């Protein structure tokens, strides 16, 4: 299929770059040009610095030429434009978290993943929109405008990493980074027909990621193929001495390991959790997911029904833990050292009340208030401690299932992309949209969403595969085994 440069997967572009069929500058120009065209309708970016990106691309071409001359190896992402969610720090660039609070903030340091992307040769391209401070499932909670779903501009791209998903889907970036606290990578990937991977907790450094819920947050890639996701994951993974929760584990060669596993034709044992196929699941989504499970059967995989009995408590536990952590994590936004400062504070105390009232949007305020409440004197045991115990049970459910199966297959989101504004007034309904993705974060597991079809009205549907802790290679191989057998990912939105 003849495709514009901006719509090709990174693996293909890397080969073209290696063969000299295209330069990094040409590729970057193609992406930038595409972005100029569609961005007014998609609004995936909070900001971009085209001149800087082109300079990075030129530097990349020079590095490649030097490597060629000296016969040294070229890193995996050399010359590939990768968009970055505007909650991950890039030195010298704005870092807004899509919040008025950080409207004028410029970060003086690189996140660890940013440094790793640069080291892998990638071009850091633009700051991608999100729900303010990554709180939301639709990217409607951005202070700088809603991102549209490239497949239907009247609908949301999902969230909170909606900008990261939409940019890749719309050809405005070849891949991107998002963060996933309760599904914020997997759900928008599903809603935008791309691949989104949340690594095991501790696999990727959080240093430089604006914390929403520290014990749940994890950075991960959006990409056009499972292989691309593997390549980006490999580039950003690894222990970081600046993040005490990142684990000292060796980073496997994900793409290579995955390809080998797929080639071996391994027959996976897959678990289908019955609790994920009940009330609230859109029939078209269910049909597509069942069809995907059918494909696995055809591959000779064993399909087992498994039970994750505490699933129905995941959303409740999640909203206690995530809001409690966020209430504390976001206390630093007070208008003292940086960020929005109210102009009419009469004293320091008043400065807090007014700056935070003016700087935060409604969803952030709601979550801070909920989180403050569940930690407050007299309520800690009943809410926070209980939620952490329920978390233990949810985790046990998964580990129990993994005694029987290699991976768990579910829908990513109960519904396809919903209309803008549809759930804006009903936070609880919005929270329940994350029902299939949240357990993975509570248990610290890796999870991936891959395209698995479209609704009759042409909206993408995602398949979630949940892996065992730190077994991303296997997870990717399971995903790739299905991806190989369909062309969903080769369909592009008409923009």
């Amino acid at each position, binding site marked *: 299929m003849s495709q514009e440069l901006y719509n090709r997967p990174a693996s293909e572009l890397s080969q073209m770059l290696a063969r000299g069929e295209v330069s990094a500058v040409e590729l970057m120009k193609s992406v930038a040009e595409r972005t100029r065209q569609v961005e007014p309708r998609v609004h995936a970016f909070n900001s971009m610095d085209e001149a800087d990106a082109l300079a990075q691309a030129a530097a990349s071409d020079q590095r490649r030429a030097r490597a060629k001359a000296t016969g040294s190896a070229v890193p995996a992402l050399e010359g590939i434009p990768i968009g970055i969610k505007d909650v991950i720090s890039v030195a010298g660039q704005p870092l807004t978290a899509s919040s008025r609070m950080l409207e004028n903030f410029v970060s003086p340091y690189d996140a660890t993943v940013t440094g790793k992307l640069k080291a892998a040769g990638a071009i850091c391209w633009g700051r991608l929109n999100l729900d303010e401070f990554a709180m939301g499932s639709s990217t409607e909670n951005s202070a700088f405008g809603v991102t549209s779903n490239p497949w239907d501009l009247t609908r949301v791209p999902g969230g909170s990493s909606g900008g990261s998903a939409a940019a890749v889907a719309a050809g405005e970036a070849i891949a991107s980074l998002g963060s996933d606290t309760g599904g914020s990578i997997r759900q928008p990937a599903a809603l935008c027909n791309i691949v989104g991977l949340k690594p095991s907790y501790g696999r990727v450094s959080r240093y430089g990621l604006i914390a929403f819920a520290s014990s749940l947050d994890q950075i991960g890639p959006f990409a056009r193929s499972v292989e691309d996701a593997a390549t980006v994951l490999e580039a950003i993974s690894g222990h970081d001495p600046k993040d005490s929760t990142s684990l000292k584990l060796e980073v496997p060669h994900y793409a290579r390991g995955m390809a080998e596993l797929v080639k071996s034709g391994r027959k996976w044992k897959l678990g289908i959790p019955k609790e994920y196929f009940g009330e609230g699941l859109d029939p078209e989504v269910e049909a597509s997911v069942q069809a995907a499970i059918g494909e696995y059967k055809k591959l000779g995989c064993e399909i087992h029904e498994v039970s994750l009995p505490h699933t129905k408590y995941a959303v409740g536990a999640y909203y206690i833990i995530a809001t409690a952590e966020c209430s504390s994590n976001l206390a630093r936004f007070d208008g003292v050292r940086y960020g929005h400062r109210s102009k009419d504070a009469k004293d320091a105390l008043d400065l807090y009340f007014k700056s935070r*009232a003016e700087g935060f949007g409604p969803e952030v305020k709601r979550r801070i208030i909920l989180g403050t409440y569940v930690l407050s004197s007299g309520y800690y045991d009943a809410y926070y401690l209980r939620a952490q115990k329920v978390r*233990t049970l949810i985790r046990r459910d998964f580990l129990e299932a993994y005694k029987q199966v290699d991976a768990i297959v579910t829908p990513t989101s109960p519904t396809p992309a919903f209309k803008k504004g549809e759930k804006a007034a009903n936070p609880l309904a919005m929270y329940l949209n994350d029902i299939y993705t949240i357990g993975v974060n509570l248990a*610290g597991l890796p999870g991936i969403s891959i395209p698995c079809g479209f609704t009759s009205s042409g909206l993408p549907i995602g398949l979630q595969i949940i892996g065992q802790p730190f077994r991303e290679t296997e997870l990717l191989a399971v995903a790739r085994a299905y991806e190989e057998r369909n062309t969903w990912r080769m369909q592009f939105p008409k923009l």
Partner: protein
Amino acid sequence: MPKPEDFNLDHVANLARINLTEEEKARFASQLGDVLTYIAQLNEVNVEGVEPTAHAFPVVNVWAEDVPEAGLSVEDALRNAPEKRDNMFVVPKVVE
């Protein structure tokens, strides 16, 4: 588990240091009331003898040696300051 009606929005907003408008208060009270009612179903879970999970993959003794590294210059430290004077961050007077 406490009852959703125990929730005192004014008190909590005070702790969180966020001013709320009357309109926000009304809206949040009802929205968070729904959420708290939903959350109350965690009461059904028997958590007796269950240890809380603070970290999905806990390890111990993650530290660094006491070797200083270069920090930020004063200029960089103050670059994003809303108000600064004499190389310090200015805040309105602190009233105890």
